């Protein structure tokens, strides 16, 4: 028996050492660790004290804090820079909540590029200055804000079978897309 354990321990220690180099990280953080500027903006915009989960995220180049909370039954993700200045607000929406001016163009894109597709997650993304983003939350005012849609979708073509994240502008035109690599499922399948 001890030989099994020894072998497992060796494999485990070696791979653990290598794994430290990767730097894409998302971590839950305590409210106390968040800059006051961010907490004040959130309280000001969302008024009453809502249940908020705070996260720290980095891809190695960009470092941000993210607050996740619900308002009007919609999940809001608010991104702040490390100084606590608000950068953007993402709201999770349903397919029928895509604005009229973008809807047709987005779906035309799917229909003409894929033999089969299904939308997995849709977020409307508002980017702008602190005051303008506050007006969005308080008064649903969208002045001076850049609107994009971040859509996670599965698209099948004759050659491909991929999960994508597409960024579409306010008129529904595709700006960019990237492949989403799902985590391996070996421990769920065998």
């Amino acid at each position, binding site marked *: 028996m001890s030989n099994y354990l020894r072998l497992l321990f060796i494999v485990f220690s070696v791979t653990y050492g290598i794994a430290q180099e990767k730097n894409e990280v998302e971590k839950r953080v305590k409210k106390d660790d968040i800059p006051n500027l961010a907490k004040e903006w959130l309280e000001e915009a969302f008024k009453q004290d809502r249940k908020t989960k705070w996260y720290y995220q980095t891809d190695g180049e960009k470092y941000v804090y993210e607050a996740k909370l619900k308002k009007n039954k919609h999940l809001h993700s608010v991104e702040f820079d490390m100084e606590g200045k608000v950068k953007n607000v993402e709201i999770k929406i349903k397919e029928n909540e895509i604005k009229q001016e973008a809807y047709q163009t987005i779906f035309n894109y799917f229909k003409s590029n894929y033999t089969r597709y299904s939308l997995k997650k849709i977020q409307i993304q508002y980017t702008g200055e602190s005051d303008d983003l506050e007006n969005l939350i308080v008064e649903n005012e969208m002045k001076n804000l850049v609107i994009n849609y971040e859509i996670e979708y*599965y698209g099948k073509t004759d050659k491909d079978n991929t*999960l994508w994240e597409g960024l579409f502008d306010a008129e529904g035109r595709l700006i960019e897309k990237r492949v989403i690599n799902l*985590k391996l*499922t*070996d421990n769920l399948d*065998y």
Partner: protein
Amino acid sequence: MRICISILGLLFFTFSYAQENRTTFGLFPEASLSYKLLKNYSITHKFESQHGFYDSENLNEELEYEHTLTDLQTFIGRRITPFIKVDIGYQYRIERGENTHRTIQQVSILQRESHFRIGHRMRIDQTFFNNASLLFRARYRLKGQIPLQGESLDNGENYLSVSNELIYMIQSGEDDLENRLTAALGFYIDDKNKFEIGLDYRTDDYLVKDRFRHRIWLKFGYYKTL
């Protein structure tokens, strides 16, 4: 953390209850190695082995070691979509008495939620014996993987893994049911290296009179992908 404690508590409660029935306890190491073959095809080799230390029926109360069985499996899988995978597999079982061959077919479906993910596995298998008729089994397993730090799993983080599998089996016109409940702590070293340690609680002979059996395994598994 509270969920962890509750599940472990439940398992220990079941264990103490199980003392009254036919009960075995042992160690259950397993390891899998997967690699890509072609674009959508992959191969997985899996080794799993059961080592008994306690058996209430055989009055093995001095914790005598006994090699129960060792399985060697190989699967060829094809990914149909990012969420669906089908596999065919073969298993050679080394066991006291008679070594057996088994063929396996399975479909795995991945369900993603914002805070966790669930793997659904539908499997059928056929076991061949020298002097007994074919054993056919149909199984459904649900396995949840819940990150313990943040919403998504990052390298070096831990996760909770909970699964339950229901197995229906039939041989020579006699059928039976088996249930397998597991709870484990997972170490997500990186996507290609995962280690899980926990308890695997199996009950079977539901439909056979006076033979209801409990098996509790301390299970530890390593999942490696090249």
